[in-house]
Each structure stands twice: as C-alpha cells, then as structure tokens.
C-alpha cells in the first residue's frame, strides 16, 4: 500500500495524562484521497470480475472475498485510524471476528 508511508509515528500508548482536553492522539493524517481512490478502484474491479465472468466461479468468489477483505481493511485501518491506535484497540476491534467465523463455520456443518 503506497499510502502507508504517510503513516507517522503515533504517540498513543504513552503519556496518557487523563486530561480531558488537548490532543491525545494527534497524528498526521493519511492521504484519505488515496485510500478513497483504492476503494473506488477495487469496487470497479469487483464489478468487472462479476460482469465479464471470464474466470471459473470458484476463482471469482475467492477474488471477490479477497477484495472485500482488502477494502474492509482499508476502511478500518485508515478511516477508522486503527493503524494509528495502540495495538490493544485493534485487538478489541478484532475480538469478535473469531466468534463470527466459528459460528458460521459450525452451523454450515449442518449441511455436510
């Protein structure tokens, strides 16, 4: 990802004064327009793959899932600033995902 180089060091994780005001997590902003461009391109690519359907269906599904995760990560990491937050916030954000996967996979076993 080209936009990563704009990600500056984030001071979070230390010096939490507990002060209500002030810049607790001031960081230079990533290039939002670049992220936006990527999201738009990926959306176009997704639709194109489905529209022309020149690949076997399994491949299409795999690629679509890959791109969906990619887009979701872009939003989470840059728009939701997870890249610039302390690691523990990202952990908190990701904590329900294993449960979600477990639930879906387990119930899918009913059809096996």
């Amino acid at each position: 990802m080209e936009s990563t180089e704009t990600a500056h060091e984030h001071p979070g994780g230390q010096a939490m004064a507990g002060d209500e005001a002030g810049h607790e997590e001031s960081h230079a902003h990533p290039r939002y327009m670049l992220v936006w461009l990527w999201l738009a391109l990926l959306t176009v690519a997704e639709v194109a793959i489905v529209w022309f359907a020149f690949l076997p269906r399994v491949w299409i599904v795999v690629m679509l899932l890959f791109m969906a995760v990619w887009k979701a990560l872009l939003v989470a990491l840059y728009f939701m600033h997870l890249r610039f937050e302390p690691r523990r916030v990202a952990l908190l954000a990701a904590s329900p995902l294993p449960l979600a996967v477990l639930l879906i996979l387990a119930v899918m076993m009913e059809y096996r």
Partner: protein
Amino acid sequence: MAGAVTYYAGRAPERGLAVYTQKVGMWVFLASEVMFFTSLIGSYIILRFGASETWPLPGEVLNIPVTAINTFILICSSVTMVKAFAAAEVGDKRGTRLFTLATALIGSTFLGVQILEYRELLHEGFGPSSGLYGSTFYTMTGFHGFHVFSGVCCLFWASWKAFRGGYDNRAYKGLEVLGLYWHFVDLVWIILFTVVYLI
C-alpha cells in the same frame, strides 16, 4: 505475593486503553454490532450454503450497476466524514461544517437509492416473502439501512452543531466517535455488497 505489599500512588486514573473513554465506548459498542451483523449475514451464508443449487445467480434479481454506484456513494461519504474530522482537528470550522453536512447529504442519497431499489424490486414481485433469498436480502439490507438512517440522523445533528461552531481543535471527539460508527456502517456495506450482490 504473600507478605509483600507494593505501594503505588499516582494522580491520573488507570487506563487500560490509552485512548479517551468515548472512543473506547464506541469500539466496545461496535464489537457488539459485529456480532449483530454476524447473526444476519451468517444466517444468509448458512442458508445459502444449504440451498446453493436453487440460489439465483448474481444479477438475476438484483441490479448490480445501480448498487455499485450506491456503494461508491457510501465510500465517498466515508471520505467526507474523515475529512470533517481532520478539519475539526486542525480547527478548520468551515471545513468541518462543509464536510459534516456533505456526509449527511451523501448518506441520505445512499438511503434514497436504496429505497428506490426496494420499490423497483417489490414492483417486480421480489419481496421479503420471496423464498430464502428475499427473506435474507431484505433483512440484511434493511437492518443495514436502519443503521445508515440512524447515522444520518446523528450526522444532521452534528452538522447543526458544527454550524453553531460546536467542533474545533479542542472538541472533536464527538465527530471522531460518530465517524467510527459511520465507517463501520460503510465497512458492513462493503461486505454486504460483495456477499449479497456479487457472489
């Protein structure tokens, strides 16, 4: 441990996460939202997995180009949202006003397109009782739409606050927290669009 007491004293409250409380709260709430959408999207995936032979192919029922444009619209609203926050953070009140209102309006556009899409589909006879496809489609997109609607309401309220100069480089947390919610809704839509419309 026994016998030894280590003494500690400090002034600030202990903080488990080095971010402000409202943001922690929003992330915690979003964790529960993930599970809510898991139950809806998961049911869709499971039911579809069990009835894969009879499931309609992408584009057969739903209109992909219109929704692709709508997806793009929602992505744009995320960008304006994040711009609004960035403007507030540097104290650019004009930018904050502009981008907050823009986000609210673009979000409303998304909702409008979705309502038109529903009307079209219902007109074609594809309703919530049209098999499992209809059941899952309307429940998932409906509840996503409900979340967008709630977000739009908050955004209009935030715009009103921004126009009254409520956000600046010392008071931007509300905008950031609202932004987190808004991006989450966008993120869910990205997944939904792929899973429901394209696959």
